[in-house]
C-alpha cells in the first residue's frame, strides 16, 4: 500500500468500557477532505456520536487529533486538538494546545486517538512506538496535574509526554481543562469529559520519524517561513518580548478591555497591570515544539504575599480574567491564580469570568457572605484565590460555581442578566461593544464565547494596511467568515494560529502540499475550502444538538448597557444586520442553517443512517 507523508496513517481507537484498544488505518478520503485536527474530530463526532447524548456519559467521544504538519519542521507546528461534545455548552467543542504532546504522538506512530466509553476504575493510557496499554491510575486520582506529570515521568521515563486532568476534571467541573506539559486544552470542559471516562492521563513517547513527501520544497518553504517569522514585528519582536500580553495597553487605551465583569471598558489599574509591568516577572522565555516565537514565559513572584508563586505565563487572557475583570491589580495574585488553574486543571478564562460574575453578584447584594463563605468585592485578590481553590476542588459553594455562569444564572435568576457567556461558554478579553467584528465573532463562534474562531480585532486595530473601522459593520461579515475558515484550517493543519501573523495562506499551502503530497492541498482555494467544509460540518453538528439562530447572540448587557467611558463611550452592540450578512456570505438561510446548495458545493458528507438531521439538511451531500 502507498505510504503516508505528513501523516503517520494510523489511528488508536480506545474503548475504555471493554478495555479494548485497536489500531486502525487512517482513511485517505478523510485526510484529503478534512485534513486533520479539528477536521478529523468534526467528521468522527458527526458520524459517530449519538445525537443528544449527555456529554459526561460514557457515550461521549473524546478525540485527540494532530494535523499533517504537527511534529514537522514547519514553524510552530506543535499543536494538537481535542474534540468532543462540551459539558459547558452541550454543543461542539474543540480545544487546541501546543507544547510537545502532539508531536510525540506522531513520533509514536499515531495521528489520532479516539477515546470511547468509561473505564471501571481510573486508568491511564500509555503509548510507546506503536505499542499501547491501559494501566491502573488509582494512585494518581485526586492528584494535581503538576504532580501527575512528575510522577508519570518518574515512573515511565522523562521522555514521556503527558496530557492529564486534575481534581476539577475528575469532579466534573464543566470548565475543567486537560493539561498537557503545563499548557492547557483549556476551554469548554474537555477535562470533565476525560474525568467522566475515568481516564486520568495519556502518556506518550516515540522514536519514529514523519515522512515528508517533497523534502527540498518543504525545506525551502521552512526557511522562508522562519525568515518571515523572525522579521515580523509581532512574531519576531513584541510577542517574543511580552508574550501574549503585548496588546494589554492597546486594548485598554482603545476602551475595550473588559473591567468588572464587562461593566466597563477601561481599567483604572491599567498602569499597574500591563505588558511593561508583567515583563518584570518573567524569568525566561519558553517555546512550544518547533516554534521560534517563544511567546510562552516562565514567570515568578519574587516579593509580596504571593512570593514564590510561579507559572508558565501569565497569558494575556488570564491576566485579564484575574486582573481587570476582577479589578485586581496584584500581578502576584494573577500568577498564583493561573498556577492554580493548571494545578486543578481549570480553564482560566472561565474561572476568572465566574469569579468576576460572583463579585458583581456580591456587590449588588444578590449573593451574600453566607452564600459564599467570605466577602467577594471586586479587587479582593485573596477572595479570588480562595474561590479558585473551591472551584478546583468543587467544595462548598464551589459545587455550584463549577457549573459556569450560565447555570449559576439559571439557579440564581437575579444574576442571570450579567452572566457573560455565549451558548454557555464565558467570554474572553475583548468588549464587543467597541468592536463590531468581535461582536459577530463571539455570536457565531461554534464553541460559544471565544476569540480564537476568528479574531477581527487584529484587522480592526493592528493591521498596518487596510485597517478596518472598529465601529463600522462594513465587510465585517466577510472578515469573520474568512478568518473562521482560515483559523479552522490552521487548527486542522497542526500549525499555531500565532504563526499566521507572519506566515500567510499562500505560504501555508506549500507546507501542506510538500509535506503530504495530497493534490488538493496544492491550491490555497482548496485549502481554505477545507476550513469552510469543516466549519459547515460543525454547524450541522451543532444544529443536530439543538442550536438555533436565537443562540447566535450575545449577553443582554451588550445590547442594553452602553460603555460609559473611554473612546467607545455610549456604544452598544447592534447585531441583527451583521448576523444577517454573515448568514448570507456563509450560504446559510435566514435561520442560520446551511443550504443544500452550500453543502453540495463544499462536498460536506451526508451523515450515516440513523444519525440524519431533521428536514432536508443534508440531502445531496456527497457521501465519502
Amino acid at each position, binding site marked *: 500500500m502507498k505510504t503516508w507523508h505528513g501523516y503517520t496513517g494510523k489511528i488508536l481507537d480506545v474503548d475504555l468500557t471493554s478495555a479494548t484498544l485497536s489500531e486502525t488505518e487512517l482513511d485517505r478520503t478523510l485526510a484529503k477532505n478534512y485534513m486533520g485536527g479539528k477536521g478529523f474530530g468534526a467528521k468522527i463526532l458527526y458520524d459517530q456520536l449519538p445525537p443528544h447524548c449527555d456529554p459526561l456519559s460514557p457515550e461521549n467521544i473524546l478525540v485527540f487529533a494532530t494535523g499533517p504538519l504537527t511534529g514537522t519542521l514547519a514553524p510552530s507546528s506543535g499543536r494538537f486538538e481535542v474534540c468532543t461534545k462540551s459539558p459547558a455548552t452541550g454543543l461542539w467543542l474543540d480545544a487546541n494546545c501546543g507544547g510537545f504532546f502532539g508531536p510525540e504522538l506522531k513520533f509514536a506512530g499515531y495521528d489520532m486517538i479516539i477515546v470511547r466509553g468509561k473505564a471501571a476504575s481510573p486508568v491511564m493510557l500509555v503509548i510507546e512506538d506503536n505499542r499501547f496499554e491501559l494501566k491502573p491510575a488509582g494512585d494518581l486520582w485526586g492528584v494535581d496535574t503538576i504532580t501527575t506529570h512528575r510522577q508519570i515521568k518518574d515512573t515511565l521515563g522523562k521522555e514521556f509526554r503527558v496530557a492529564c486532568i486534575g481534581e476539577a476534571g475528575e469532579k466534573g467541573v464543566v470548565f475543567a481543562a486537560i493539561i498537557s506539559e503545563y499548557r492547557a486544552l483549556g476551554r469548554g470542559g474537555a477535562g470533565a469529559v476525560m474525568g467522566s471516562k475515568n481516564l486520568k492521563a495519556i502518556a506518550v513517547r516515540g522514536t519514529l520519524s514523519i515522512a515528508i513527501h517533497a*523534502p527540498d520544497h518543504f525545506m525551502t518553504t521552512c526557511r522562508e517561513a522562519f525568515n518571515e517569522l523572525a522579521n515580523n514585528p509581532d512574531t519576531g519582536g513584541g510577542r517574543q518580548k511580552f508574550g501574549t500580553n503585548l496588546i494589554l495597553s492597546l486594548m485598554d487605551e482603545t476602551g475595550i478591555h473588559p473591567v468588572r465583569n464587562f461593566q466597563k471598558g477601561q481599567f483604572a489599574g491599567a498602569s499597574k497591570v500591563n505588558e511593561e509591568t508583567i515583563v518584570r516577572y518573567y524569568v525566561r*522565555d519558553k*517555546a*512550544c515544539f*518547533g516554534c521560534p516565537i*517563544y511567546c510562552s514565559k516562565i514567570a515568578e513572584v519574587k516579593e509580596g504575599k504571593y512570593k514564590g508563586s510561579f507559572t508558565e505565563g501569565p497569558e494575556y487572557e488570564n491576566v485579564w480574567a484575574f486582573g481587570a475583570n476582577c479589578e485586581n491589580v496584584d500581578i502576584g495574585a494573577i500568577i498564583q491564580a493561573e498556577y492554580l488553574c493548571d494545578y486543578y486543571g481549570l480553564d482560566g478564562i472561565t474561572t476568572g469570568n465566574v469569579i468576576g460574575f460572583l463579585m458583581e453578584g456580591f456587590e449588588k447584594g444578590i449573593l451574600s457572605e453566607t452564600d459564599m463563605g467570605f466577602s467577594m468585592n471586586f479587587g479582593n485578590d485573596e477572595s479570588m484565590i480562595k474561590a479558585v481553590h473551591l472551584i478546583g476542588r468543587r467544595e462548598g459553594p464551589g459545587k455550584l460555581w463549577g457549573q459556569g455562569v450560565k447555570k449559576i444564572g439559571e439557579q440564581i435568576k437575579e444574576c442571570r442578566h450579567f452572566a457573560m457567556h455565549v451558548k454557555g461558554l464565558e467570554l474572553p478579553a475583548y468588549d464587543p461593544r467597541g468592536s463590531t467584528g468581535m461582536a459577530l465573532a463571539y455570536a457565531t463562534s461554534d464553541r460559544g464565547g471565544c476569540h480564537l474562531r476568528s479574531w477581527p480585532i487584529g484587522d480592526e486595530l493592528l493591521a498596518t494596511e487596510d485597517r478596518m473601522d472598529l465601529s463600522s459593520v462594513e465587510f465585517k461579515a466577510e472578515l469573520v467568515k474568512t478568518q473562521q475558515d482560515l483559523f479552522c484550517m490552521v487548527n486542522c493543519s497542526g500549525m499555531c494560529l500565532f504563526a499566521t501573523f507572519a506566515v500567510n495562506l499562500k505560504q501555508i499551502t506549500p507546507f501542506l502540499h510538500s509535506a503530504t503530497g495530497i493534490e488538493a492541498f496544492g491550491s490555497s482555494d482548496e485549502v481554505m475550502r477545507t476550513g469552510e467544509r469543516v466549519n459547515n460540518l460543525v454547524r450541522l453538528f451543532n444544529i443536530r444538538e439543538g442550536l438555533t439562530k436565537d443562540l447566535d447572540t450575545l449577553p443582554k448587557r451588550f445590547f442594553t448597557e452602553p460603555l460609559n467611558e473611554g473612546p467607545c463611550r455610549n456604544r452598544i452592540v447592534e447585531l441583527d444586520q451583521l448576523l444577517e450578512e454573515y448568514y448570507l456570505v456563509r450560504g446559510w438561510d435566514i435561520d442560520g442553517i446551511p443550504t443544500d446548495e452550500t453543502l453540495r458545493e463544499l462536498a460536506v458528507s451526508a451523515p450515516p443512517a440513523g444519525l440524519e438531521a431533521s428536514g432536508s439538511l443534508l440531502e445531496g451531500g456527497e457521501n465519502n
Partner: protein
Amino acid sequence: MIKLNRALCTECQICMMICSWTHFGENTTKRSRIFVDAEWPEIPAIKVCLACPNHECVTACPNDALAWENWIQLDKERCDGCGACIEACPVNGVHMDSQAALPLICDTCEGQFQCVQWCPTKAIQIKE
C-alpha cells in the same frame, strides 16, 4: 566547536529537528546529536559534544572506533554500540541512535553548524 548559553534556550527543539534532518534526512527529534533536556520549569540543559581537550570518549572506546579529526569521527565498522563513550562523556554529549544502535556525536555538520544557524535565540553558538 559549539558553545552554549542555556539561559537563552526556550526548549523549542528546532536544533534537534534540524540535526536529525541534516544527518539522516528524517523529520524527527530522535536522531539528533544535540539534546535539549528539560525539567519544567527549570532552565533546560543542552547536551552536545563540546569538544573537550581530553577526548574522553576516544580513550574510553574499547574498539578504537572513535578518533578526533576536527571533530569526533566514528568508524561504524569498528563500533559495536557498547555505549562506553556515552558513559565516558563528561558533558553527557553522546547519545545512542535507537534506529542504528550507534552513538550520535556532533560533527559540526562538517563546519556548517546547522543548529547554530537555526537556533532562534542564539543559545547555541560557534566557539571561535
